[in-house]
């Protein structure tokens, strides 16, 4: 199972990438949300976590997308995109359900990316 390791100082967070739903930014801190609906705050900026994903996951990192300044989202969990209401729902259709907001432009691009992944057999 591929894992994203977020380590700093005396703390280390190990998250199976299949279970990582999204990461939201809170300034110098970020909140990692996993499929079991747990939230873990880490002292990393979102841009720094981007670097970790790029360095540790390589091709597998393409399942994660940066949506504006606030979010990194695992596209595998994209359940519903409503561009007109600027609404994004991430869900596994079991226990995980998160309703987020994002800009119209970002959601248009996310929708196009998901459709392209489907079309080219990447999902």
């Amino acid at each position, binding site marked *: 199972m591929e894992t994203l390791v977020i380590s700093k100082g005396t703390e280390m967070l190990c998250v199976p990438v299949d279970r990582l739903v999204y990461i939201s930014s809170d300034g110098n801190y970020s909140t990692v949300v996993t499929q079991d609906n747990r939230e873990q705050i880490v002292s990393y900026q979102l841009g720094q976590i981007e670097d970790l994903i*790029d360095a540790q996951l390589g*091709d597998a990192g393409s399942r994660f997308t940066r949506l504006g300044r606030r979010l990194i989202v695992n596209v595998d969990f994209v359940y519903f995109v409503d561009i*007109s209401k600027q609404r994004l729902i991430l869900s596994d259709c079991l226990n995980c359900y998160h309703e987020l907001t994002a800009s119209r432009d970002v959601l248009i691009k996310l929708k196009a990316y998901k459709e392209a992944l489907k079309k080219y057999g990447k999902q």
Partner: protein
Amino acid sequence: MENNNHNIQDDEFRVLGTGSPVPMGNPDEERRRRRLGGWFAFALVALLGLAMIVFWPQSEDPDDVEGVFESRSETEALPLLDTLTTETPCVIKMDTLVSGHLLKLFIPHRAGARLVVGDLDEKDRQAVMNFQAADIRADNHEILGEFVLAGEQLATGVSKKGFCAIIDGYVSVGVGESTPLLDEAIAKGGYFFRQYALVDGGEPVMNKPKNSTVRKALCDWNGQVFVAVSADRLTLDEFARVLADFGVTNAIYLIGSDFAYGWSVDPAGNREEFGFEDRRPEYRKQSYIVWE
């Protein structure tokens, strides 16, 4: 650890890891990307149209045709329409989902347009598509807004900013209080009418609140003109936003509810009628844009 690539705006999107495993185009051009989702759909429409014409004789049920959004660039999208092999005027009819709303597209192929005032001739086999165009008052049959019929200006007034000019059979859709196309239409025996503007330069135009109903629009997609009809009941503003999300360059409203009579002719020559003709005297005089 941080690098300059982390400068990101709220409306930006990027794929992490080693990048997108699928073609995504240039993510930095926000406006272009906003329209790109619509371009995908339009390329799809063009491709499906081509497929329908090429495979029509072998297809037992053309309604089985399905599609996905095509990932194509702007330069690839429009020439596809020119590759349609038939020279016979016809209409490619397609459905597409935009922002959760189904749009029905009627795309004329190899057909010139003109305006008609009065009743449609149901026996007219030259016309491949028609939709109601300008507002005509039911009480005194006054045409509302600038209106030119075969070079003759029948009405004046610019209460509605959207316009359609038809010169030498070619349709232009735009928004503005004045346009040289009006004089050109008069000089060249063309046609001109005004309607509510819905999309201006890719941006939705907000109008006074109206009720929700099936909406129709004459759309220009960088020179490609087609009619879009909403499957859902939408307000004018909702309809304008959907068209803008789709990527339409300019669009104006067309009157006529879902009961308005008309027809379209598919590439196989089959004529599909919609709505019904209102035979009440006050509604006998309508204006239509007819492709033939």
